[in-house]
């Protein structure tokens, strides 16, 4: 397996990070960039000219990850040549099917399942219900096939996102990539760096990802009791203290990023389902714990999978981590890079939702606020 990378910015044009003259032999290309650049047909044509035979997967991002840096207004291209692995891709558009669940169900029904070892998903980020997508994906697929990937992002909080398969990024598209063959090892890990605090509450009123009441108390009243007076802006404050759903299986809580508050309906919009009856607590973090967790994710994506120095690490980190990390955002990627001894090509992006099993051999789930890493290693 060989990987080469290049990055486009309007100032520096194409900058070659690594080069193996993959050209015709590249099978798979990941393109992560700004919403403008991933929609640019001429830029896509250039990439297609470089890699005429590859499956090209495009996703807009809330920040591009390449090597040990986070960049904005760039387009990061990672081309892969597999020697012993085949891949199959497919794209389902939201307007062709009934709903988010149906997108997942179609992908899991249509993807070739013989010898399928791993499924990656690159989904629209603003029109999709990620939790329902996951339920649909698992509908026709064995739980033993790990699903990793993420939802697309954008620099403007929670505005339109763009994904594409063998074309520029468009709205409402979900792409699946199946990996086949016994020579490819894929590792995955998802770490948060967040810890729960405050009382446990039951979700007593919600509708999909809109939360109305905790213990029959309006959600804003609940937050105000704790945060009012300590912050000028309640919405900003709630973003720093999201909710963690008790998973009941002894694993860390499933984080749900708070997106916005609708004063008219009295509902808080979260980046994943908030099922009634679930138990939640507020979560807190700090810069240290987030940066450390990113490094832990790197180690956890290799060691348990017996992968020594992967050929590629694909990072999907959450846009919500940017709220806390702010100017320290680059440090979490540096920490990932250091955990890999600066010897592994790193690509990825900041997203509206990460997809990964929480631990090895567990069912995949939609996460927020995590650093999620998928590692690839072809054994010879």
């Amino acid at each position, binding site marked *: 397996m060989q990987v080469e990378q290049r990055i486009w910015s309007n100032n520096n044009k194409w900058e070659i990070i690594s080069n193996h003259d993959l050209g015709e032999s590249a099978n798979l290309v990941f393109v992560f960039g700004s919403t403008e650049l991933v929609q640019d047909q001429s830029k896509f044509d250039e990439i297609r000219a470089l890699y005429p035979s590859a499956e090209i997967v495009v996703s807009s991002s809330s920040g591009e990850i390449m090597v040990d840096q986070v960049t904005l207004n760039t387009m990061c291209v990672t081309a892969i040549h597999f020697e012993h692995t085949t891949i199959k891709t497919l794209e389902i558009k939201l307007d062709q099917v009934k709903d988010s669940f149906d997108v997942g169900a179609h992908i899991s029904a249509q993807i070739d399942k013989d010898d399928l070892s791993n499924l990656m998903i690159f989904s629209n980020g603003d029109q999709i219900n990620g939790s329902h997508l996951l339920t649909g994906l698992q509908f026709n697929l064995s739980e033993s096939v790990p699903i990793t990937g993420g939802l697309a992002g954008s620099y403007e909080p929670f505005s339109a996102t763009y994904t594409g398969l063998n074309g520029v990024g468009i709205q409402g598209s979900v792409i699946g990539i199946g990996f086949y063959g016994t020579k490819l090892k894929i590792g995955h890990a998802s770490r948060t760096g967040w810890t729960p*605090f*405050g*009382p446990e509450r039951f979700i007593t009123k919600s509708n999909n990802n809109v939360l109305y009441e905790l213990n029959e108390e309006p959600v804003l009243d609940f937050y105000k009791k*704790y*945060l009012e007076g*300590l912050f000028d802006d309640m919405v900003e404050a709630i973003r720093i203290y999201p909710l963690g759903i008790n998973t009941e299986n002894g694993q860390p809580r499933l984080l749900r990023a708070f997106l916005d508050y609708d004063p008219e309906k009295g509902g808080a919009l979260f980046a994943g389902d908030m099922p009634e009856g679930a138990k939640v607590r507020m979560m*807190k973090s*700090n*810069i240290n714990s987030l940066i450390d967790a990113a490094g832990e994710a790197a180690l956890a994506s290799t060691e348990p999978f017996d992968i020594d120095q992967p050929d590629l690490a694909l990072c999907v980190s959450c846009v919500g981590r940017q709220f806390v990390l702010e100017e320290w955002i680059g440090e979490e990627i540096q920490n990932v890079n250091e955990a890999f001894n600066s010897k592994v090509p790193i690509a990825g992006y900041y997203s509206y939702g990460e997809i990964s099993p929480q631990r090895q051999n567990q069912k995949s789930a939609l996460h927020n606020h995590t650093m999620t890493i998928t590692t690839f290693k072809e054994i010879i």
Partner: protein
Amino acid sequence: MKPDLNKILNRQIKKYANGEGIPENLEPLFNSISLFYDNFERDQKLVERVMDLSSDELMDSNMELKKLNEEMDRFVYSTSHDLRAPLLSILGLLNIIENENTQYDIKGYLKLLRDSTVKLDRFISDIIDYSRNTRLEINCIEVDFSLLIEDSFKHLNYMPGCSTLLKLINIDEHAKLYSDDRRLSIIFNNLISNAIKYQKTEIEDSFVNIEAEITQTELRVEIEDNGVGIAEQYITNIFDMFYRASPEAKGSGLGLYIVQETLEKLNGTIEVESTLGEGTKFIVTIPNMTLGS
């Protein structure tokens, strides 16, 4: 010294920088340190607040549990006492029947046995009403209030004094009534049965007068009788669990307690006016609900 730096940091600079301030090239470093100090202080305040609120919540739920526990204690004590009394009376009567001459007034004893059994059954029904009110969700439907009152009287017809009591019923329906019909039945069965139970024995023109008005917003019902009335000093306690205003009181002591608990569930209120020896008037107000609420 920069006024926008964190207070502790400012003090540290003053103490250790010999009053020289921060060199310009170190300002970003100090700004970053200051921001971390601020965040740590904010998080500390937040954790303190969490502890305060959790401690208050714990105290509140503890008080609530204590209250429930006391109520439960009283309930178990009084219930077992009230359940045993008619049973002991039944056993006593059975003893008499066994030991007496078999021909002697069997019918009279059987009537006493029946009375005790009915009393026991009524008491158990009250407990069932109480538990049903506590357990069940409100089930709002369209209610025919005239029919509900009619059914109440039908249900209570077996009570001594029911047939001779003059019943005056006047219902003004300005709007349809939406409420929980089972809970309404519990409330009005209890209030009407009190009017029947506590008639004056010495007069012949005993009456119960029910005046009801249904509007878009509420149901208001006045239930007035010319019965024995309640002495002023007891009025405040009549809604308490197992409270009986006089030794002659014939009920379980649960009736008005259940009425109040049930009204609470429906967000209703009850008022009482009474004069000993002249009669009692209960005024019940219940919000008119909407379908599905």
